[in-house]
């Protein structure tokens, strides 16, 4: 479904320091992946390349066999990908419902209900919600696009243990029940162990 073909990446200002070195991997739908790695190992870079927020120096990222550059990065972000961030990144002047509507045309109220956000909370300013609730709104926004791939960057980094477990359960459900390809980037081994596959990013290489 989502394929990395011989991906290499380095910063143009530091050509001798390779972040990703000829990485190839195929992500399948209905599976939850966890990408582990220490700080500075290139996890976020890899996620950016998958999300079409950056382009590799060498190699291609393909979805359904089609190079995302050929399709257009904007179209790729809109149709193939949905993103969940560590800091939620909700738009502060919109309500939860409106934030979800940014993601796509799906029924925002229904999605928020599924995520456990009650009606009163849906109409409040999104910044007045707790961290866990904000992350649920962010996930609802990611689901609104109906994109087949969900990328999450440290989604439980700012959450307490109970809420983190709830969020992980939602991801598992998305992968197994809704047949989405869920890729979670984390440095938490505990979270990674709940994924179907654990991939480790080390010295620019992605290992299973």
């Amino acid at each position, binding site marked *: 479904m989502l394929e990395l073909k011989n991906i290499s990446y380095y910063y143009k200002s530091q050509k001798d320091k390779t972040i990703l070195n000829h990485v190839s991997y195929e992500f399948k739908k209905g599976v939850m992946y966890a990408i582990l790695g220490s700080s500075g190992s290139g996890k976020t870079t890899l996620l950016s390349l998958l999300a079409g927020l950056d382009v590799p120096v060498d190699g291609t990222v393909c979805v359904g066999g089609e190079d995302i550059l050929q399709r257009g990065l904007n179209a790729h*972000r809109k149709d193939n990908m949905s993103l969940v*961030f560590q800091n939620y990144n909700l738009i502060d002047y919109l309500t939860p419902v409106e934030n979800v509507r940014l993601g796509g045309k799906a029924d925002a109220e229904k999605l928020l209900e599924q995520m456990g956000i009650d009606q009163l909370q849906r109409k409040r300013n999104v910044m007045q919600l707790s961290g866990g609730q904000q992350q649920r709104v962010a996930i609802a926004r990611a689901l609104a696009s109906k994109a087949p791939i969900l990328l999450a960057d440290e989604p439980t980094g700012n959450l307490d243990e109970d809420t983190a477990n709830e969020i992980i359960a939602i991801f598992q459900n998305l992968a197994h029940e809704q047949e989405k390809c869920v890729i979670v980037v984390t440095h938490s081994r505990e979270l990674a162990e709940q994924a179907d596959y654990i991939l480790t990013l080390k010295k620019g290489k992605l290992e299973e």
Partner: protein
Amino acid sequence: MSCLARTLCYIRRKKMKSLLLLFLFLVINSMVLGTLGIRKVSLELAEELRKNAESKITLESMDVNHPFEETDMQTIGNEPNVNWLNRISEIQVVSTTCIPVAGNEGSENVFTIHGYDKLEKDSPFADKVYRITEGNYPQGSKDIVVNQFLAEDNGIQAGDKIVFEMFDGTEQEAVVAGLFLSGMERSQTENVATVNRIENQIYGTADFVNKLSGRTDFFNVAVYVNNPEQLTDTKKVLENMYQDCAAIGITDNTFQKLKMMIGQTDRITFLIFVMTVTAGSMIIGLLLAMWMRSRKTEIAVLISLGISKENILSQMVLEEMILYFIAFAGAGIATKLLLPRISNCLAIMQGNSITLELSFGWQLGVLCIGLIGVVILTGIAIFPYMEKPVKETLSEMEG
């Protein structure tokens, strides 16, 4: 969620920012419209002044053999800056029906008749030294105005006729169109010759005087110009034409006095306008730059959600444009209400019929230029964050 929906949400929910920007736009627009209103009036006044300043060049023939003929009048009248000519003539003539107010010495029944194309422009009437007390200035070719004392002595009233002897001995009737007083009749000494006494001065048209004298030329001409600022140039042209036979002078005191005042108003309003626009643009530009910096995350998130950069730019531009438009409408109403009051306070406007207001065209111009300015300022403020890779912004946020 559409661009317009996001725009309206931003304006509604970010109340402080929106109100601050609205207030700034309102102040700037009010000042711009106000100063433009004053500037427009000062320009109109300058134009009115140019037309009505009555700046003129006076030509006086120095050679009795070379008076100004009709052909000279046509040549002068064809000069580009010449508006019209006031031909001036004079004759001493005998009346068969009227007795002059006598002095110690003088000729029997001789009067001095002064002829002007427009009596109220170049005669003692122009400076309001002489004033019409009854009737009107001469309108028809046979109309004259006579002194009130002469009229009383001879039992003449407005509408009566006086007969004068022409150059060839025949008689010519004139109609008394009005009576005048100079206020100096009583202060004349007894030594003043009868023909020179104020009471015995009669004023009529230039053509009437020439009819009495049998001449077709004139010894004095006042040349009125269209544009007083080119008065010297026109004078030079006339000097080249009549250098040897005429004394040439200029009169444009009224224009010079008012020109300074209006020029000053014009410069001040222009300065206020430039300062307002410059300071306003800088303040708005800095505020937008500051606010856009705080919105870089939002921009990155919207891009990561697959929303195009054009759509995001449109949202930001639309936010400022809506606020600008509301502020402009407010400023328009405010200036509409306040400008008449301001005009009453301005000394320059006293006694002038021009009202201090802006035309629709000028307002539309301010609106369009303002909106373009807003688009440019927003574009400049947002540009760095549109160009910055989304990954970098998001990485900064994630720490």
